[in-house]
């Protein structure tokens, strides 16, 4: 009887476990394993090197640049996309004409494939006759700028695309959260004499807290994950100005074929994402006890 129950339990767990092991747990362990060996080349098989790959990373200036680029990228895109998402949600939640059309317009970037988006923005950023140069030339009289070709502007240009792509998606969550706030709370606040700013600061914003946290964690993870447009547009260039951890992993692993080094890089990225996830669970556990 006992053995039968155990069998049933394994049968229930089986499908989910098979998928998780095959596509999540085994790759992580394998990557960790590979990161401790040298890259096998031709006649030379892989041999155990311990933390040598990690030591090489520490000495690699491109790794440090990719890491600092990535932190800057995350710190720039996360608050900007969240702020923009909130502003758009408040705007399309109000009583305005063409509300449905506006919502669709704001959400459109989310449904476009990132490769298509990258090609679109290649045109926008084209020096001289691209959309961005046209606008800056018209408004400020600036000359042609090679937005994605110069070291100073390339990372900013990539961040702008990420914000544009993500804000609409996060707006949907804010919109849902805003609509879940009972209108009677706003009525109570208006009877109590609260100004619009007070209502926003003391009612709307706190009630959006759990949503903001959820969005922030997702935005942060996307800050390390969303690099398709960089692969398409700059390959991490010029001179590694737009190199992020993930693009650098791709470059080391699939262009230089240094798979051991790429495994070590992957472990670093995994560690960062694990820390983000950990922060998520502790914060979420503490902040969402009301309602």
């Amino acid at each position, binding site marked *: 009887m006992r053995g039968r129950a155990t069998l049933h339990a394994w049968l229930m767990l089986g499908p989910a476990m098979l998928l998780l092991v095959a596509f999540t747990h085994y790759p992580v362990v394998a990557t960790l394993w590979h990161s401790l060996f040298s890259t096998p080349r031709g006649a030379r098989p892989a041999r155990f090197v311990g933390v040598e790959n990690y030591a090489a990373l520490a000495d690699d200036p491109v790794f440090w640049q990719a890491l600092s680029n990535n932190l800057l990228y995350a710190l720039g895109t996360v608050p900007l996309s969240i702020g923009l998402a909130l502003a758009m949600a408040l705007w399309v939640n109000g009583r305005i004409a063409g509300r449905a059309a506006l919502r669709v317009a704001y959400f459109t970037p989310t449904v476009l494939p990132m490769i298509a988006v990258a090609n679109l923005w290649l045109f926008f950023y084209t020096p001289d006759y691209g959309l961005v140069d046209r606008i800056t030339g018209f408004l400020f009289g600036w000359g042609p700028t090679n937005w994605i070709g110069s070291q100073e502007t390339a990372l900013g240009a990539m961040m702008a695309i990420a914000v544009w792509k993500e804000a609409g998606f996060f707006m949907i969550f804010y919109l849902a959260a805003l609509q879940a706030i009972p209108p*009677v709370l706003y009525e109570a606040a208006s*009877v109590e*004499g609260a100004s619009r700013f*007070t209502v926003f600061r003391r*009612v709307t914003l706190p*009630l959006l807290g759990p949503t903001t946290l959820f969005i922030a964690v997702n935005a942060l993870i996307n800050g390390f994950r969303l690099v398709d447009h960089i692969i398409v547009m700059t390959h991490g260039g010029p001179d590694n100005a737009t190199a992020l951890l993930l693009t650098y992993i791709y470059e080391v692993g699939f262009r230089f074929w240094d798979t051991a080094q790429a495994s070590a890089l992957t472990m670093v990225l995994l560690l960062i994402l694990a820390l983000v996830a950990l922060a998520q669970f502790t914060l979420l556990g503490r902040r969402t006890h*009301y309602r």
Partner: protein
Amino acid sequence: MSITDGPGAAIRLDAVRKQFGDTVALHNIDITAAPGSLIVLLGPSGCGKSTLLRVLAGLEAASSGSVHFAGRDVTALPPAARGVSMVFQSYALFPHLDVAENILFGLRARKVPRAERDARLTRTAAMLGLASLLERRPAQLSGGQQQRVALARAIVAEAPVCLMDEPLSNLDAKLRAEMRAEIRALQQRLGLTMVYVTHDQVEAMSMADQVVLMREGRVEQDATPAELYARPATAFAAGFIGTPPMSLLRLQAAPGGAAIAGAPEHPVAPAEAAGAMLGLRPEDVAPTDGPGLPAIVSGAEFLGAETVLRCAVGTAGETLQARIPGNHALPAGTAVRLRLPPLAHLFSSATGQRLPLPSHAPTFA
């Protein structure tokens, strides 16, 4: 600011009308309330009483007409500038703020100095027995406690007019009776002018100085509870007030006067009352061993101290109710004779309006 208001009116509504699209929610409402009085807006659901309260609060703008508080025209003012506080049916407590912050929300928004804020909080919390709950969140409170917090938030504002939208409808019967007395006592102690919306006529009768009975966006009767009970202005008012409410019976011409339809051999009113509706309070009707109106018991409801008998009279399907002390749960089908009170209420069958009684009403039945 008009002189005609006088010092008497804490609230005055002049021909207030509210329209949502083509639907008229309120037809020319005129109400005056004295300072320090508790005025109840009573009526069935959909009668416009909540809409009227929201117009008073400024949450809805009146389509036409004017609202005056203590002689000040507030028709165009936002809720915050009207000097009102409000208790919502769902309480509308802020779920992320603790009890103290919920109560203080308005004082903070109005930038009341900290010392005064704290003093008012302490006083109000003590008054409502919330002192030990100040650090709880609304979700950690029972329904009755949440109700008290909502009440505290309204009282701490010290606004001259307090508006209440069915504040007790989410509480159980026992708590409702307690809170009814407590709200009434608070209102009198603080001298508030209170407008109280309810669909429960017991609540209205037991609390109000003045009851405004509404129906389909119109004021049906505006009177004291005693007047409303003793002299209902319409058949609707008669059928709404009382537990159970007044029985209404069609009168037909019969030999010797007017009789209940289907029972011509027992005239109950003078001949000129024929065609009207007769109103009988169940508490004034009693079974008797002597001569009386013959009736058949069709149902009985034992309520503890008293019994309500539902009786069929005559052959035309007229029924009336009798409320008698003690347990008299007679089985259905029992024949009884009923002693009726002197003629007191007559209503027009066509308009429902109260009719004057015939000048010399002899005793019948």
